[in-house]
């Protein structure tokens, strides 16, 4: 697997990163499922047009934290957030925030690919229709082609757009879900272990895709695969037991972490 994916790792390592503006600014955030505290005092700045990876053992809160960024946890009754989460300087937990509008700006790709049981075309069209983004059929077809191309799946599906999305392979379904998220032109793309259910080749395609997409999007990816974090991300944040232990440039986290815990984790001593 490592040999297969080596070309990618050379793409990210060693290049100096330009400083980009802070897109997501989280300060002192606590998160609760009912009485149980799942996240404690998270403070992190996520920069625009970079890939930020969240790593950590299962149950460390990395997915929970990701889901607070588009208020997806809001769906679960009894959840509560303290602290502040700002996107472009706006408090997304303010009472005046339009959650639907927020999710339009902050797209999400899930661990388990979840295409709708509709045609490939309709899967992409759903978000466009829901948000009223296209004026006519022609414009919609253009947007659909564009997003399927951006998700590097156009060539595989262009002749069978009317077929059910459930006929696609796992990797294709996941790229379709990425295309679906891109179609509504979000600014941020949250990816929750997007390749965890995929084989190495499909994984490599998703990783290449992430690398291409960061020119236009701010990407946050949760992964339990440290090689993947090292390959695709610019910055890495390490979570442990609901706390953010350390965050910083990916090379620094993997080569000279300041915390002993981080070092133990990235060198595979636990987790």
């Amino acid at each position, binding site marked *: 697997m490592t040999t297969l994916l080596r070309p990618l790792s050379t793409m990210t390592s060693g290049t100096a990163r330009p400083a980009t503006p802070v897109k997501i600014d989280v300060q002192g955030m606590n998160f609760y499922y009912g009485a149980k505290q799942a996240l404690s005092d998270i403070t992190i700045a996520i920069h625009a047009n970079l890939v930020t990876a969240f790593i950590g053992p299962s149950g460390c809160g990395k997915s929970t934290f990701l889901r607070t960024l588009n208020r997806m946890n809001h769906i679960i009754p009894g959840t509560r957030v303290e602290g502040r989460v700002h996107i472009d300087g706006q408090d997304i937990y303010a009472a005046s925030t339009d959650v639907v509008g927020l999710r339009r700006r902050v797209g*999400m790709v899930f661990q388990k690919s*979840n295409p709708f049981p509709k045609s490939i075309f309709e899967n992409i069209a759903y978000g466009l229709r829901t*948000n009223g983004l296209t004026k006519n059929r022609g414009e919609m077809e253009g947007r659909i082609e564009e997003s399927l191309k951006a998700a590097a799946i156009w060539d595989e599906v262009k002749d069978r757009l009317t077929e059910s999305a459930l006929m696609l392979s796992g990797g294709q379904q996941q790229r379709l879900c990425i295309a679906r998220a891109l179609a509504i032109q979000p600014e941020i793309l949250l990816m929750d272990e997007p390749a965890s259910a995929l084989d190495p080749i499909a994984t490599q395609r998703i990783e290449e895709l992430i690398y291409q997409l960061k020119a236009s999007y701010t990407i946050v990816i949760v992964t339990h695969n440290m090689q993947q974090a090292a390959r695709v991300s610019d910055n890495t944040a390490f979570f442990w037991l609901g706390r953010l232990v350390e965050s910083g440039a990916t090379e620094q986290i993997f080569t000279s972490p300041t915390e002993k815990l981080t070092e133990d984790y990235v060198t595979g001593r636990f987790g």
Partner: protein
Amino acid sequence: MTLGTRRKVEWLIERALFACAAGSVLVTAGIIGVLVFETYEFFREVPIRGFLFGTVWTPLFYDAQFGVLPLVSGTILVSLIAMLVAMPTGLLSAIYLSEYAPSRVRRVVKPVLEVLAGVPTVVFGYFALLFVTPLLQRVFPDLALFNALSPGLVMGIMILPLVSSLSEDALHAVPNGLREGAYALGATKMQAALRVVVPAALSGISASFILAMSRAIGETMIVAIAAGQQPRLTANPMNSVETMTAYIVQVSMGDTPAGSIAFRTIFAVGMLLFLMTFALNLVSDWLRRRFREQYS
């Protein structure tokens, strides 16, 4: 117990359970056998074409005619009215229970709704005749005392729990990932429910509709009490009609001599009724299986 006795007991239990299962299958087969035999006897005297396509049903008259269409139309008319009530309200309440209701409400409302299904149908029948019909007559003065509308509406209420409960099961079985996928694309709760969850559960929902239709067609007491006993080929719900089931009640309760051709009509009508509900149940079952395959 020694190993020997234990094996013997196990063997006995297994045989006894098999006998119970075989017994119920045999009884069903026996009932169908009688139905087939009597129907065969009936069609030796009455041509099938005349039965299926005839428009006059007067088997008890001196000049007997055996066209079953008036009974079929009466049955379908009342069932359609019932479905017009049960489909929208059942589906909407299912959507509410599955997508909107807090789990506390759901835990209370669903069983209560299912209790409705336990009300004896004879109660619904008198409710239709003595309460709903007079009420409707205030709105429609032309409404006959026995009519298709009132039992149709009440039957709709009777099958509503079936529709809402089975549709709710179907909606609930739609994986959460699909809802999240819709929300993540900026869908509102309603857009997620109507454009993703309901379409995804469509085969399960259709199965519940068809099963409810089958239940409506086979329902007896409500129509026997409130729809009347006039086999009439009509689409006007204000009129008195007679359904297939109500006809069977009428003849079996009456003094028609057993073995006569008039008596055998109830088996022919019963056979037709059985084939209709059986076909609907098969379709419903097939849809439900397809739905389960989709999400397992």
